[in-house]
């Protein structure tokens, strides 16, 4: 019997009015992926962490495990989370 693999930790760095952030979160919810949403407009230290980690000064950034993904990169998100 196939054993379902545990979903890796997923964090979405976002701002409330960023359309690609909403698209990303909508996509994860539709695929029943649990994630933590960090609003970088409210959490400036998280914003700094994100920039340090990725060099990226724009959202969304999706952290899957330890792998940061910049923007809504559907193929890469699918690959890392096993979404078919």
């Amino acid at each position: 019997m196939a054993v379902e693999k545990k979903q890796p930790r997923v964090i979405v760095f976002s701002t409330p009015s960023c359309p690609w952030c909403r698209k990303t979160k909508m996509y994860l919810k539709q695929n029943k992926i649990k994630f933590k949403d960090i609003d970088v407009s409210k959490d400036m230290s998280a914003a700094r962490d994100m920039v340090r980690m990725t060099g990226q000064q724009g959202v969304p950034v999706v952290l899957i495990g330890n792998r940061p993904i910049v923007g809504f990169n559907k193929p890469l998100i699918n690959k890392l989370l096993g979404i078919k």
Partner: protein
Amino acid sequence: MDFSLGSLQESKELKDSYDLIILGGGPAGLTAAIYARRSGLSTLVVEPLITGGNIASTEKVDNWPGDTDGVSGEELANRFTKHAERFGTEFLYDDITEVNLSGNEKIIKSGNKSIKSKAVIIATGTHPRSINVPGEKEYKGHGISYCATCDAPFFKGKDIVVIGAGNSAIEESLYLLNFVKSITFIQDLPYITAEKILADEIQKKENVKFYFEHLVKEFKGDGNKLTSVIFEDRKTGETKEIKTEGCFVYIGLIPNTNLYKGQIELDKYGYVIANEDTITSTSGVFAAGDVRVKNLRQIVTAVSDGAVAAYEAKKYIDKLNGGN
């Protein structure tokens, strides 16, 4: 702010065919959906991103009649969406990959789905124009941004540059000023092109500076992030450099019409050629909102187009079905 899927639910089971498919779920597309559903047409809206179009990422809409104190773009986008949902519009949130607009049966391909309709309303809007100078691609997301409401928090307390001085540039800059220390505008024309109320408001601010009749030539960086913008005085040819870690680009829009090339008439900028009646060169295809050739691209003109397009689509479908 809570992220709610409330108004962004994809329809569970899509049909193979609809009376009307609306491409794009901005103000034009959603208004078309409201009118189409009220006239009894089965209607599918296909939206690649999120509904609301460009207003969904606009901090504040201050010229929507009836909202006397202004309204957040996100809220207005959600209201439009819920209104279209209330009348039974179906939604597909996915890329539009291929269209076949000729003949009486239109075919829209989205992902692995192929859906037919009798009529199509194109309401796919526009996206921000790139400036196409060296360094832009390299430092996009590393100091260069096209969306203030998305990326403003990363530039808190910094001296930034905004390229352009049209409505979008000034509206977004008024929002950016809540975060940044100062804004230097670089504008190719000799004046602010935004409407007067916005121009007056930005000029009252003490921490803004304008370079008129200057052109951006290059973005420079340290390999990781933007460090300066190189620009040129159009009158003297003098090259200047301004040190900055942040630059927002608002130099106009490009219509999202690549998919329709060769199937409907577009003007030289790529906008769909259609009159006030929204009727395009292809039978059964209508164009509404910012994607259409027009002089004023606003929410009110988009929703007007949407209503007209739905009315014309209904007339077309009735005729196709052998009615009056």
